């Protein structure tokens, strides 16, 4: 009894102490001293308390401690760490400007890198890839066009589709199971030129994060991944420009202050010009295609606590071909495909500094027009999606132990698929039609807390309530999220996570080819929302001496209410697409390993994935389980950048991927038509995805020469070779006659052999 009384007394004393201790908050923004760009993921820590936090997506941090004097250390990869001593007797605003470590070649120990490496180990985040933009620019790519999605394809758990394209298949999920956000706005079509180039211009991008599992509750809407891309804000100190002149495209980025230290802008444009170059040598318009895109952003600091941002993306793929003037056919075909996004945001840090919010107004449009004419006949087919939404995100840090996030999203989708306009005699057979207008509202609420339970155990728990209303049918679902980290040592930890995701939109396309004209549709009364449940666990270690981060993760994912297309489905101009869909489920599981070194003379990563991905649809493949088309057993990539001297550096990547599954035609038979008036040859296929293509592997190299390094004008040459040893990368399958005329055989052919590239990058 006495022992019980003593315990109660101690508890009361602790409570009094806790209540009596006055907590204050130090908060502010962290930015780059050189150009004022806010820095995301900077660690702000108090070594004496062994507590810290990281700046959010807007460079804002807040630390709440009992009154006292503390030393706060700010660390960031590639920047010189900064220490600030503060007397915390009231709430303090402390904006920090970090100085870039411009002399990394001397292997100066950048403490920031240690903290970044440790941050990955000590946070509850898992299954998250964060790639420095500088590294993205160094990875050799097709035609020398740096491309963030192709770099992500080299990471564990992310598989590529057709060779050279920007399709992304994450942990056994489909390409339409990735939510791609550009400054909060969803981007529906991420590829130019049938997907060979992504729509993201790396010169305008500041931060890229890919979540493959253990999703924080502020993200939702797709089953397999979230790619969160943030655009740069622009230099608020001085005007500057950078650009690139390449073989097929060039880009230019201009940025500068509108009001110094208060308001800045950035505008970045890109265009291909192969059409113009070829037209110099031929009047026949042999390559009537080009694409262009434009990113622009303005940000304004209203006060120390308020910032507003306006950012936009506009891109188009244009194909315009017509018969020559003398041609009596007067025929032509035109196609315009593109995205347009606008995001307006307002950040506010509340007076008590513990609360921060961001309100976003979002618009995202995707549209394609395809038109053709022959003589007096013409056809125009249009499809579009219009999204208009509002999103509110709050971050609240009551104590240093809790980081609470909550918010809401309301988004209205308008779908206008297959609007057809015909003129001339063809209208007798293909009538003009307005198409269907489908309105759909998505509403979601979320909340989660990142909580330091003990010095070793940290958990992140949250819940997302998502819902959608379409044609008087309401779907709603709870999406629990959980992640936990247990610290083994300062440099190692184990983590585990669970996440449920819901998806209320799906992409209707043919599996045979992927086109920008594939259409997005919302769920309907008959087509239910997809859902996924994923558990994952991993071991994380930071090798401090080598500056290497190691992560090893396993995952298992259950996918429900997936849709596929019936055998023989054809979806071109098919408004009754629902009748072509079948519903099923899938599983995917695997092991992923990543060793990543982001600094020093030698940087890069090694990634390996061992994975399985299956599908079961009662109406496909006679109900038997089959490998999904994204199933690849092994994926391996090694990416390395070596700085030889101040002027020279070399990058290389070697990638290996097991063969993709496909369905082959093995037999055929003669069959009279139902009237017995003609004969057809009908195919017999293997069971679904029963045959494997060959494994693909490829080596790419890029050599960089910095022609000017000491003047204000900086230039660098890139000499690259893609697919150096000229191996066929599986991109198409053909049936080819045997050389001895004994029949035919299946052949795998690649689109690209070895491709050289040269590009000149400049900055002033």
């Amino acid at each position, binding site marked *: 009894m006495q022992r019980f009384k003593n315990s109660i007394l101690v508890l009361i004393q602790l409570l009094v102490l806790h209540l009596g201790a006055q907590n204050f908050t130090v908060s502010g923004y962290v930015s780059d001293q050189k150009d004022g760009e806010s820095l995301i993921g900077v660690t702000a820590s108090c070594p004496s308390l062994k507590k810290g936090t990281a700046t959010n997506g807007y460079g804002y941090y807040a630390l709440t401690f009992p009154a006292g004097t503390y030393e706060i250390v700010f660390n960031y990869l590639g920047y010189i760490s900064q220490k600030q001593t503060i007397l915390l007797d009231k709430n303090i605003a402390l904006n920090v400007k970090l100085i870039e470590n411009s002399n990394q070649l001397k292997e100066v120990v950048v403490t920031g890198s240690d903290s970044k490496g440790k941050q990955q180990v000590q946070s509850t985040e898992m299954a998250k890839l964060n790639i420095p933009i500088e590294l993205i620019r160094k990875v050799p790519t097709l035609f020398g066009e740096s491309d963030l999605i192709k770099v992500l394809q080299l990471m564990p758990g992310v598989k590529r589709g057709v060779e050279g394209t920007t399709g992304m298949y994450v942990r056994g999920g489909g390409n339409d199971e990735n939510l791609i956000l550009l400054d909060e706005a969803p981007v529906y079509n991420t590829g130019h030129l049938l997907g060979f180039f992504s729509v993201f211009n790396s010169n305008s991008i500041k931060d890229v994060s890919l979540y493959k599992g253990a999703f924080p509750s502020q993200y939702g809407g797709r089953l397999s991944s979230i790619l969160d891309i943030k655009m740069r804000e622009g230099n608020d100190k001085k005007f500057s420009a950078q650009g690139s002149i390449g073989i097929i495209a060039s880009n230019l980025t201009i940025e500068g202050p509108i009001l110094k230290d208060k308001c800045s802008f950035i505008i970045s444009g890109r265009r291909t010009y192969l059409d113009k170059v070829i037209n110099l040598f031929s009047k026949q318009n042999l390559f009537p295609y080009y694409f262009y895109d434009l990113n622009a952003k303005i940000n304004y600091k209203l006060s120390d606590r308020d910032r507003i941002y306006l950012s936009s993306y506009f891109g188009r793929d244009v194909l315009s071909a017509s018969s020559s003037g003398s041609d009596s056919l007067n025929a032509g075909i035109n196609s315009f495909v593109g995205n347009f996004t606008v995001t307006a945001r307002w950040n506010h840090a509340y007076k008590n500094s513990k609360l921060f919010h961001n309100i976003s107004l979002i618009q995202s449009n995707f549209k394609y027009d395809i038109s053709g004419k022959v003589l007096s006949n013409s056809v125009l087919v249009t499809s579009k999606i219009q999204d208009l939404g509002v999103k509110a995100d709050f971050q609240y840090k009551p104590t240093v132990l809790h980081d609470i996030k909550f918010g809401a999203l309301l988004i209205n989708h308008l779908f206008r698929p297959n609007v057809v306009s015909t003129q001339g*005699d063809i209208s007798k057979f293909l009538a003009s039609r307005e198409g269907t207008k489908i309105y759909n509202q998505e509403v979601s609420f979320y909340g989660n807390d990142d909580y330091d339970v003990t010095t070793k155990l940290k958990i992140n728990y949250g819940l997302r309530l998502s819902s959608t209303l379409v044609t008087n049918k309401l779907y709603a679902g709870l999406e629990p999220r959980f992640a936990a980290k247990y610290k083994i040592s300062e440099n190692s930890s184990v983590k585990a996570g669970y996440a449920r995701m819901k998806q209320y939109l799906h992409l209707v396309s*043919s*599996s*045979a080819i992927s086109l920008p004209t594939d259409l997005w549709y919302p769920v309907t009364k008959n087509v239910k929302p997809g859902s996924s449940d994923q558990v994952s666990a991993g071991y994380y270690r930071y090798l401090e001496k080598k500056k290497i981060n190691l992560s090893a993760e396993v995952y298992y994912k259950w996918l429900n209410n997936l849709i596929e297309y*019936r*055998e*023989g*489905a*054809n979806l*071109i101009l098919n408004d009754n697409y629902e009748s072509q869909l079948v519903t099923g489920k899938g599983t995917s599981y695997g092991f992923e390993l990543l060793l990543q070194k982001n600094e020093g003379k030698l940087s890069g990563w090694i990634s390996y994935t061992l994975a399985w991905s299956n599908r079961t649809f009662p109406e496909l493949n006679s109900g038997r389980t089959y490998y999904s088309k994204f199933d690849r057993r092994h994926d391996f990539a090694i990416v390395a950048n070596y700085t*030889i001297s101040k002027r*020279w550096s070399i990058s290389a990547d070697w990638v290996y991927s097991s063969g993709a599954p496909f*369905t*082959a*035609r*093995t*037999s*055929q*038979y*003669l*069959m*009279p*038509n*139902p*009237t*017995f*008036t*003609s*004969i*057809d*040859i*009908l*195919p*017999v*296929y*293997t069971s679904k995805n029963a045959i494997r*293509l060959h494994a693909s592997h490829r080596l790419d*190299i890029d*050599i960089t020469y910095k022609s000017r390094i000491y003047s204000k004008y900086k230039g660098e040459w890139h000499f690259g*070779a893609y697919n*150096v*040893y000229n*191996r*066929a990368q*599986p991109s198409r399958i053909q*049936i*080819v*006659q*045997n050389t001895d*005329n*004994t*029949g*035919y*055989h*299946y*052949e795998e*052919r690649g689109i*690209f*052999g*070895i491709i050289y590239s040269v590009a000149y990058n400049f900055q002033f």
Partner: protein
Amino acid sequence: MKHVIYSFVILTLVASCTKTKPLIITLPASEQKLAISSVVIPGNILAVSVSYSFSALENSKDSMGNNVFDSTLYQQFLVSHALVTISYNGKTDTLSKLAPGIYASAGVLQLVNANYTLNVYDSATQLRVFANSTMLQKVNFDSLYFEKEKTASDTTLKIHFSVADNLSEENYYMVSYFNSAASPIYNSVFSNPNKNKFVLVELYSDKVVEADGKIKVDKNFFIPDENDTLIIELANISKGYYEFLSAYKKSNQLIYQLLGEPVNLPTNINIGYGYFSTFNPSFKIVDLSKL
């Protein structure tokens, strides 16, 4: 460093002189099976086609590179010495060989709702298949009329018809249009296609029945020859045959082969391909010159 770059450039230039070598994919061997189809013609005629399946990678060109996937090559896949029998209502008829791969009997009674069992045995390969089918009731056009529309450049035939659907049952219909050039295959077995031949098969389910219990259809055709004859055939078919024909229509069209999902056609042939169906069609013959 210069040496490294020169070596790299020279090596890659040499490599680029060679084309990317295609990779050969090995497929499992094709298994030979019998492929069956049938047609019922008014007048108690039942015709059955019997052929062998063959590899999708079969040679179709001769040593000169000419396409020989024609009547000559077809012959080797036709089953010429099969025993084909049809059993129904306690009676078995043996079908006679009408042409290579075609067997027929003019004495098969068309008994509505009777079950018909087809047996085929090929002594050359020892392959044996069987299938069952129920003879469905004959249906007629509820209404059928035509319009001819002439413009300066072409002539269009507009066909309007309706079919009264029996709502108490799940019904499926096949409507075929063909001209006089589309002669039956047993008259000109597997001959080269006649350029003037016109054949179109359309399928309807009673999901498109209107409020008055009728399926109403409007069709437009360009008429290349105004003196031609058009035959329109209507048949009430089983659900299984409807699904087979739906898949068939997709399988033999290039656009579906290029853009659609692969289709393995359903079959009611035990250990074989194709479909045995006993529908009972009605016909309408239209002399286009008299419209």
